[in-house]
């Protein structure tokens, strides 16, 4: 298992980035932060496009350490020598080349390390649904198509690490979902480690296994995606929400619902074509439930249109402005619930109390 060791400083007049972190290069790591937090600068440092970076940067494998930057020893590996791919926010396709020529540009220059089976051009083209566009000029492509070409071009260069800098931010909702699905598939099929920068937590939550949070050029959180979102919620740094990754149990097509397993209980969410059609990719579903969408009852509701009610225990009771943030543990999973102080008093809720939480199927949100 490889990891990326980052001990880097970047100093500008009005901004500084200072990172000291070992980032595991497995699956997708999300890098989240507001604009100006330094997330794009961090990607540029890793890519080798930030000339002002000071410090050390290396990829550690089981057997060897590959130094990319060691400013004291005057080591700076040029971007083209790093074998790291980068998909930019704007697709940056070469305007004088066709789609196919763009794709071949990286393929021709790839540094195939011994023993690795090289990627099949057709396989990537089919995966990214570009088979009908190969002979087109890039000016004829839509925004979504351009980003797919940019992704396929980066993949065909066979990088050992793929960086993505807000790759969805210029796309409309429909294309965002297409790209997210595509990235999930790419990650599954190619097993390529990715660092995914975004200011949208919802996007990152759909893709990433790990989450690194940046604020004013410093790492404030790093860890498992659900745990970090949990921490951000308890610290009141984001809208209170519960982030879940659940196994698909079955599709109740006649009711338009999908059943997800949560221990011996179940959660129902609206049936989603994407998830139903692509059962291989979506054995698991990532979803978010806003704390304001969940309510608490003392007895199991039997005559309610609300489909989800789960039994659980209150594990935390935190006053937060005029509201109370409850943490309710149901079958081992913590759920965040926002209720008013008035309701908390009326139901005389206390820690360790057994309660039921309820929420509509529609409040279980997923981006795909």
């Amino acid at each position, binding site marked *: 298992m490889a990891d990326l060791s980052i001990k880097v400083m970047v100093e500008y007049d009005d901004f500084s980035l200072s990172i000291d972190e070992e980032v595991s290069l497995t699956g997708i790591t999300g890098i989240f932060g507001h604009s100006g937090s330094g997330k794009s600068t961090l990607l540029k440092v890793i890519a080798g496009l930030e000339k002002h970076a000071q410090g050390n940067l290396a990829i550690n494998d089981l057997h060897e350490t590959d130094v990319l930057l060691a400013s004291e020893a005057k080591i700076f590996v*040029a*971007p083209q020598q790093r074998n790291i791919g980068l998909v*930019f926010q704007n697709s*940056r396709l*070469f*305007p004088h080349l066709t789609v196919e020529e763009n794709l071949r540009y990286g393929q021709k220059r790839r540094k195939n390390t011994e023993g690795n089976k090289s990627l099949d051009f057709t396989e990537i083209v089919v995966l990214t649904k570009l088979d009908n566009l190969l002979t087109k000029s890039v000016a004829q492509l839509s925004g979504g198509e351009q980003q797919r070409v940019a992704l396929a071009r980066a993949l065909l260069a066979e990088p050992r690490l793929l960086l993505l800098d807000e790759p969805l931010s210029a796309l409309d909702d429909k294309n965002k979902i297409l790209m997210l699905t595509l990235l999930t598939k790419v990650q599954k099929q190619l097993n390529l480690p990715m660092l995914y920068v975004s200011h949208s937590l919802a996007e990152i939550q759909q893709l990433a296994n790990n989450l690194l949070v940046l604020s004013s050029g410093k790492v404030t959180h790093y860890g498992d995606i659900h745990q970090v979102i949990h921490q951000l919620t308890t610290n009141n740094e984001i809208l209170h929400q519960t982030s879940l990754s659940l196994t698909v149990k079955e599709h109740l097509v006649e009711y338009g619902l999908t059943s997800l397993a949560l221990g011996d209980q179940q959660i129902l969410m609206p049936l989603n074509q994407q998830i139903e059609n692509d059962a291989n990719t979506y054995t698991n579903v990532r979803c978010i439930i806003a704390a304001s969408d969940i309510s608490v009852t003392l007895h199991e509701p039997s005559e309610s249109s609300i489909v989800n009610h789960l039994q659980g225990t209150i594990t935390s009771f935190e006053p937060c402005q005029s509201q109370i943030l409850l943490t309710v543990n149901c079958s081992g999973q913590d759920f965040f619930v926002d209720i008013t102080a008035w309701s908390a008093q009326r139901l005389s809720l206390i820690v360790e109390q057994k309660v039921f939480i309820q929420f509509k199927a529609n409040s279980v949100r997923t981006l795909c």
Partner: protein
Amino acid sequence: MNSTHPDMLALITTLKMAGITTIILMLIGTPLAWYLAKMKSRGKVFIEALVALPLVLPPTVLGFYLLLLFSPQYLPGQIWQEATGQQLAFSFSAIVIGSVLYSLPFVVQPLQKAFEQLGDDLLEAAAMLGASAFDRFFTIVLPITKASFITAASLGFAHTVGEFGVVLMIGGNIPGETRVLSIALFDHVEAFDYAQAHIISISLVISSIVLLSLIYLLNRPNKSRLTTKKQTESKRFS
């Protein structure tokens, strides 16, 4: 006119001078324009002013200082004479060096503008795909800024053909060596041979119009994009 005619000889000398000058200009103008386009320090303004100087300075001023420098009394002329055994002033080499300096802004400015417009985005993308600096220049920069290269070379060539003052000062009027068309024209006028002067003048006017028209044709804005748009539109209506 046969090749022994003095004006024919002047034409050949002119084309040789302009051709060699253009090649040298492209070789030194490209890296200089690249450096100016990418440079961010304040010293850039000074170099830019220096490059643009021939645009405003009377050619005779440039010619006067070059004449001094090229003479054996000064170090550059002295070094040249020791290295080649020949005097630099009043030689073909002198008018080529003079032309390179005189036409430099015509090559550097369009290239610098093209490199600035190109920006770093595509070059960064190419680097991330494994392309070295050399590779990026030939596969990205050159094809995209091709029109500007042709413009720069044509302007450099045309401007060199049209120069008079610098050549007169440092080259004199040696047939087959430094006697170029503009000087030959001046000679004819001085000798009241207006018929011959007309021939040279009108040929220079016509060839300049043709060359400049070609440059403007090449630089029509968004030429390629317009055709693609037209194609998609015609497809939509068919």
